[in-house]
């Protein structure tokens, strides 16, 4: 090859190299140029977000419960800090503010190049002190930031909820939120976050070498919408005080029992009360004990305090998340099913008059002919003594377990799968809201369990496949044809066994029973008012209407009244005062495990001629329903019906 040819080849290689570069230049400058130019123009602008105050929260009568105030906060803008000044700045600032140096350094790092971050809110005095030292604190400024303030302290804590910095889950749910702005973590603060948070304002400017050289028109922040709750603050206060008194009463009674040599397992530490409007399903009061002060979360809560509160279950709203066997309060539902479905009673059993639908209530049921042919005896664990022959009305009044057992046993014997009526009692209870979340507009809620043959078979299967998991069923159940037995349906009919429900579910079911069968999703918020004054009412959606005859409904209401005038809650209501004929109620004593105290329940309905209020009281391991819970119900119903609420004193020890 001639030298000249070789030179040409070298030249061609150069031409190829230049072509590649030239083509690439054309691609990024012409083909993609306009797009890149746009991004480049935006890049030189720094966006600073201005936090919006959260919306206010009012009670149903317009009493302000939570608002926002403007407080000074120390903010660091890294745009104005030269890299070599960083160490000294972090040192100085952490010593002035008395905060952890490593934590501050971490905040600084996370803010990123040209980033801006809030160190902490400070007192007015500290704000002055910082302001006087700004010369030696490059990039530091004292800004006015909105801060949440709860005017009622711990009152209504579980419904209001609290704030906290967004965690990974919050950011995944809503990637646009500013990670330094606190968001709702519980209660309506969380469930109405999108309304309360408002719209952050924006300031845009350009900086060169630490000087702002250009600004764009700023956008002001818009305060979040305010909420008007369904809660009546006065009733809420009364309810919370009643709950605390009930827990104190329960512990006093336990002391007496201990002194009398009776077995007591624990101190009473938890309880919940719900007052629900039976027609609109507005939650008028909702208390859960123990509680917490949401204000402590505003500036950031320390780990120790949080753990202590968390361990005491202070953040758990027992009204919506506490799961308990509804016990004898459920007899009102079984009552309705017996009447509406004309449930059969078993024949050929001593003490059961199937023809007249009467039962001899003496605390014992002898069962000679069970499916396996062996005779069995079932004793009423809460022996009320010999009450003689009772029909359905007296059975509810006296909370006779034998009666409701008999109806369940008759159902178990008459309807076996594949008959769809095998689950007739469960189906009714599910229609009335058990076993599914009520749909209340709060951040968390438990669903509870309605036991059926199908569920027990699932559990058995799971238990066999996962022997290392904690068992749900007695091991003997795994060895028989079906783990579901007649006794399970009998327990279910009196609200026991594997059956669990929340106090709010109990309130919902009673409201439906007494309002003609309408099941709505309860609401704690009535209205949302936007910053410009637009009002959006919040209406509880109707889930379904359960057909209940007027006769059954009116019988039930009459019998519920007999409970407070003559039945298990008679003593607790003896000092109710005028208007007792308008009150209905039902006690319940939830059998816990053998080594725990019973749960005390009471459900009140008033007025029975046109039901408006449903009051549910639950004292976790509080003892007997008639003795501990019914007096609390009476106290609240006195207030609701315009009577002077009398002190909460021990009632009759009854189921």
């Amino acid at each position, binding site marked *: 090859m001639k030298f000249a040819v070789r030179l040409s080849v070298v030249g061609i*290689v*150069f031409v190829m*190299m230049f072509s590649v*570069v030239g083509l*690439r230049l054309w691609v990024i400058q012409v083909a993609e140029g306009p797009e890149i*130019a746009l*991004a480049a123009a935006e890049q030189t602008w720094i966006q600073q977000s201005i936090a919006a105050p959260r919306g206010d929260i009012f009670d149903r009568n317009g009493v302000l419960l939570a608002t926002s105030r403007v407080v000074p906060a120390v903010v660091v803008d890294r745009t104005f800090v030269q890299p070599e000044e960083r160490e000294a700045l972090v040192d100085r600032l952490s010593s002035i503010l008395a905060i952890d140096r490593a934590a501050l350094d971490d905040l600084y790092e996370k803010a990123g190049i040209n980033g801006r971050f809030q160190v902490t809110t400070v007192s007015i005095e500290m704000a002055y002190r910082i302001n006087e030292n700004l010369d030696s604190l490059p990039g530091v400024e004292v800004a006015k930031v909105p801060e949440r303030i709860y005017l009622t302290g711990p009152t209504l804590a579980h419904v209001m909820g609290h704030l906290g910095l967004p965690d990974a889950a919050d950011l995944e749910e809503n990637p646009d939120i500013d990670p330094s702005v606190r968001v709702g973590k519980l209660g309506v603060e969380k469930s109405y976050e999108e309304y309360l948070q408002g719209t952050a304002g924006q300031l845009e400017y350009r900086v060169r070498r630490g000087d702002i050289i250009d600004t764009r028109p700023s956008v002001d922040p818009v305060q979040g919408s305010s909420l008007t709750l369904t809660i009546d603050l006065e009733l809420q206060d009364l309810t919370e005080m009643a709950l605390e008194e009930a827990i104190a009463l329960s512990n006093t009674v336990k002391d007496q029992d201990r002194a009398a040599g009776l077995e007591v397992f624990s101190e009473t530490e938890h309880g919940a009360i719900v007052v629900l409007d039976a027609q609109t399903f507005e939650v008028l009061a909702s208390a859960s004990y123990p509680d917490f002060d949401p204000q402590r979360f505003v500036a950031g809560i320390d780990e120790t305090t949080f753990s202590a509160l968390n361990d005491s279950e202070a953040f758990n709203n027992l009204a919506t998340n506490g799961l308990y066997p509804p016990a004898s309060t459920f007899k009102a539902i079984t009552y309705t099913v017996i009447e509406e479905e004309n449930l059969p009673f078993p024949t050929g059993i001593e003490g059961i008059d199937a023809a007249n639908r009467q039962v001899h209530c003496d605390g014992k049921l002898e069962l000679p002919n069970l499916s396996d042919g062996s005779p069995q005896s079932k004793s009423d664990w809460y022996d009320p003594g010999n009450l003689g022959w009772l029909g359905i009305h007296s059975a509810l009044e006296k909370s006779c377990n034998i009666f409701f057992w008999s109806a369940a046993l008759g159902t178990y014997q008459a309807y076996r799968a594949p008959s769809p009526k095998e689950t007739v009692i469960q189906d009714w209870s599910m229609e009335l809201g058990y076993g599914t979340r009520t749909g209340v507009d709060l951040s968390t809620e438990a669903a509870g369990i309605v036991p059926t043959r199908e569920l027990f078979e699932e559990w058995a299967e799971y238990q066999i496949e996962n022997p290392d998991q904690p068992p749900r069923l007695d091991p003997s159940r795994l060895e028989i044809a079906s783990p579901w037995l007649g006794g399970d349906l009998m327990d279910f009919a009196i609200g026991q066994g594997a059956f669990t429900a929340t106090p709010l579910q109990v309130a919902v079911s009673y409201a439906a029973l007494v309002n003609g069968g309408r099941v709505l999703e309860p609401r704690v918020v009535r209205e949302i008012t936007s910053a410009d004054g637009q009002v959006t009412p919040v209406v509880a959606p109707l889930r379904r209407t359960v057909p209940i005859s007027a006769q059954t409904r009116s019988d039930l209401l009459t019998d519920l009244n007999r409970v407070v005038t003559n039945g298990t809650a008679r003593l607790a209501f003896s000092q109710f005062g005028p208007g007792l004929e308008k009150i209905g109620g039902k006690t319940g004593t939830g059998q816990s495990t053998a080594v725990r105290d019973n749960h005390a329940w009471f459900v009140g309905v008033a007025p029975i001629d046109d039901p408006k209020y449903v009051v549910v009281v639950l004292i976790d391991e509080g003892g007997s329903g008639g003795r501990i819970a019914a007096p609390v119900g009476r106290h609240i119903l006195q207030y609701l019906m315009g009577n002077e609420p009398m002190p909460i004193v021990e009632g009759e020890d009854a189921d």
Partner: protein
Amino acid sequence: MTVLTRIREVAVVRRGNRSDRILFGTMLALSGLGLLMIYSATRNTGTFSMERQMIFVAAGLIIYLVSSNIDYREYRGIIPMISVIILILLFAVFLFDPVNEVNRWIPLGFFFLQPAEFAKVVVIIALASLLAPSMHEESPQRGVSWKKLGLALLIVAVPAVLIYKQPDLGTTLVFVFILLVLLFAAGATWRQMVTLIGAGVVSTVVVLRFGLLSDYQMDRIRCLVDAEVDPQDLCYQLGQSKRAIGSGQLLGKGLFQEGTLTHFEYVPEQETDFIFTAVGEQLGLLGGLLVLTAFAVIAWRLLVIAANSRDRFGALVAVGIAAMMMFHVFVNIGMTVGIMPVTGLPLPFLSQGGSFYMAMALALGIANSVWLLRTPVPSENQLI
């Protein structure tokens, strides 16, 4: 007297030939544009980068004029001595404190000498001297013997390894490119070329596979493929540069405009290795293509000089210089537009930097010397 006599011997006998005015003019134009760009990129910093560069340009022009007037054939005799000196300097950089964790400079008080820049020119002369048939050779053979090929590898390997250790991967690659081009121009057979390139590919694979590159070098290569990989803001520089150039579009944003990325100093190293971003953003595709055209003119002139050299040595020197400059241009601009990894190779005559500017001026001065002496001596004619 002896000194004067010696100077007369060394000085180019013009024989009526003129300097390559196109080459010189293009170099001046690029240098002027470079000063303008350096000013635009640093006018807010208060570092006097442009003023410093003006001094280097002045020094470079003197070096160009002097080297143009030295008979390039004189270098052949003293190349072993020059090589030893440059190797000593390349060793010497390790004696001084590293700057930014790199041993690349020798502080001379008034400026920092970068021996590696001059080593490129020295290696070109050494390779050309080896590969061109000696005037004393009895029967000059065509092509490149395997022995010469081995020697050529050795000539390149010693400085390349030293520079790689600084570390300066980019400059190391310049040596490899110069070697390949010169071997090919000197008449290496296809077999020799394929063997060399094959060995190169194999060693590249070995280097990549077995992690002989440092982490930051690997990251820089990864940035090209996936800008999301950005452990130390390395891709940031690349992304900013691409964005600055792209936003210049067809005609550019104009010189010294407020609010450009160059003005806001968003592109790190924008007055040195990334000077082309200032060109691309302010003067657009038009300015960029003009710069490319200027370098194409330089390449064209150098190949013309090579073709008209009176001997093979001069021709190979000119080809080697062309290879060096074009590799710089390709890798540097390729890096700013995101098709080459960040290797730190500056752009001839535009990037701020003293040693580099002077070494480039020296290279073109030597090429001009080849041009001035181009009238072929009849006895050497057969060799071309």
